[in-house]
């Protein structure tokens, strides 16, 4: 297993490098000056000079590339002129919020999705399965941000059960300093996480249902029944354990979805994460921020996939232990 993991890790690094190169190329194609604004955006001359020197913008392209990569490795992502602070700072503030939201969304996604998938597989072809299948198809087909808008409208604006947006109460709880503040954060997290989670759960449920149905038809399930095990144990221990394996690889696919959805959901709920940062940056033509967030998102996806692959390798004994037979 370790050799396999090392290979996956090396591949991940290669992918990140490729992404970095891609962004570099794109930026140069566009206007040739990474991390620097163009046009009429004001930035103090000292900052401009510093950045120019740092990135060697008068040097040939390969040199610029090397300096670009070196800067990235040092965590230097340029200066945001809209926010008038280093991009890395802005990202450092925003990323935890996105991670929280994506994490909560993932939690809801898998909790609801797995339960629903197992239940639907157990009631396969009967009314409950068909009805739930259609409902879940509907939720999987809707734009995530639209669901967010609707939930916001109904539960926040009309019913006042949840707040209308934001991460927490800025006055009373600027940081999570008490249990009450934690509760306040969770209260704010609820609707956006639900939005991401419900749409994701619908997809997960479909997948899990299919995995369960395939596993339940396998010979070893018949063997388990022949041993006189209760049906519940057959399904929840013998079948589910195998059906969960493909779902773990679904985790890898869920990440890009969550990050993409997070962009729009953050916008709807005024959630101060990477997505909102990016959109604001675009509307203000703040290129350094935009490229930095694209990079950060890609790195997150790659890391997430690596984590999912590791989890899979650990969970499937056929990969974890190479056979001697």
């Amino acid at each position, binding site marked *: 297993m370790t050799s396999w993991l090392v290979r996956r890790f090396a*591949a991940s690094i*290669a*992918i990140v490098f*490729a*992404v970095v190169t*891609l*962004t570099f190329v*794109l*930026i140069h*194609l*566009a*206007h040739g000056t990474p991390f620097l604004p163009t046009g009429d955006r004001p930035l103090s001359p000292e900052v401009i000079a510093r950045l120019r020197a740092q990135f060697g913008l008068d040097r040939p392209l390969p040199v610029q590339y090397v300096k670009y990569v070196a800067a990235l490795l040092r965590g230097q992502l340029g200066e945001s002129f809209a926010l008038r602070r280093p991009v890395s700072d802005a990202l450092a503030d925003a990323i935890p919020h996105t991670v929280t939201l994506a994490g909560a969304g993932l939690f809801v996604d898998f909790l609801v999705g797995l339960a629903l998938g197992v239940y639907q597989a157990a009631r396969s072809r009967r009314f409950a399965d*068909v009805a739930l*299948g*259609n409902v879940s*198809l*509907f939720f*999987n*087909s*809707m*734009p*995530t*941000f*639209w669901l967010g*808008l*609707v939930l*916001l*409208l109904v539960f926040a*604006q009309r019913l006042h059960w949840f707040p209308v947006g934001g991460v927490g109460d800025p006055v009373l709880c600027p940081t999570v300093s008490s249990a009450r503040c934690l509760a306040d954060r969770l209260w704010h997290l609820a609707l956006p996480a639900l939005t991401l989670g419900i749409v994701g759960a619908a997809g997960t449920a479909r997948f899990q249902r299919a995995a369960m149905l395939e596993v339940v038809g396998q010979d070893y399930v018949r063997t388990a029944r022949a041993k006189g095990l209760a049906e519940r144990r057959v399904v929840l221990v013998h079948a589910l354990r195998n059906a969960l394996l493909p779902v773990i690889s679904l985790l890898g696919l869920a990440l*890009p979805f969550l*990050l*993409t959805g997070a*962009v*729009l959901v953050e*916008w709807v709920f005024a959630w101060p994460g990477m997505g909102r940062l*990016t*959109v604001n*940056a*675009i*509307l203000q*033509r703040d*290129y350094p921020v*935009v*490229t930095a*967030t*694209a990079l950060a*998102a*890609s790195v997150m*996806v*790659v890391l997430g*996939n690596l984590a999912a692959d590791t989890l899979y390798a650990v969970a499937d004994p056929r990969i974890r232990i190479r056979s001697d037979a």
Partner: protein
Amino acid sequence: MNAWKWLALAGALAAALLVAGAVRRRARDSAAGRRFLRHPASTPGVFVLAFFVTLAVAAPLVAPYDPDWMPGIVELQNRPPSRLHPLGTDIYSRDVWSRLVYGARISLGIGALAMLVAVTLGAAVGAVAGYFRRWVDAALMRFVDVGLALPRIFVLLMVVALWEHVPLAVLVLLIGFTSWFGTSRLVRAEVLSLREREFVAAARALGARPGRVVFRHVLPNAAAPIIVSAALGIGNVMLLEAGLSFLGLGVPSPAPSWGSMIFDGTQKMAVAPWTSVFPGLAIAVVVMALNGIADGLRDALDPRREAA
């Protein structure tokens, strides 16, 4: 809305019913078709898709008003659904139903075109990688890995930011260029197994050039994952375009793509929810129909089922 428009609407519904009925009849004749029909969402999916396509094609006949007409920006804005405006008016007093109908052209059109680009690219790359294997495969698949690692929306947002003005055609191409990676993996897998079959050896024994073998012999047999990808792809593209337009970065105003309609309605959502709810509902329904059709197609075309 006058009687003619109601008639036109009924006509669209009838046309969709006819198409759905015809599809059902044809499908019953083959085992694959019967597998398609077994899915509860496939026939309704055909009906819904046919309905919206009819709406898009016959938009001038069905829509009661011009989608850009603003009869009274102040007096008639944000009116709830009524006899005159069946789905209400938006913030600029434009009729929501008319915009929805014309918007079908834009949203479905972009979806179909971008999907075409994506599926063509994906199938071509996947087929070449699967057929030639070795370093060609390795190189292409690394490229695909990178493509899959980039969350599409960030890439698109980055491009939109870097090039300040993106014409619609370029937008369609871009969406297509960022959406083909998954398809290529599927096609590659299919081609890998197909290339071991006898008809490939036969074609090569006849002296066919590799390109000809790939495109004329192998790919048509790999149609199943391509078709399913296409059906799903339209839905995904529509959702992506809606997201971009919702941010104000996709289809430019005043074109009534369903996503930009939602964008228009966001500000006054509390007061006039119908302006955002109906276009979103339209997207959900159409994507659901496409997903239902894709499910049916996946089962119908699955070669493993042929043995059953």
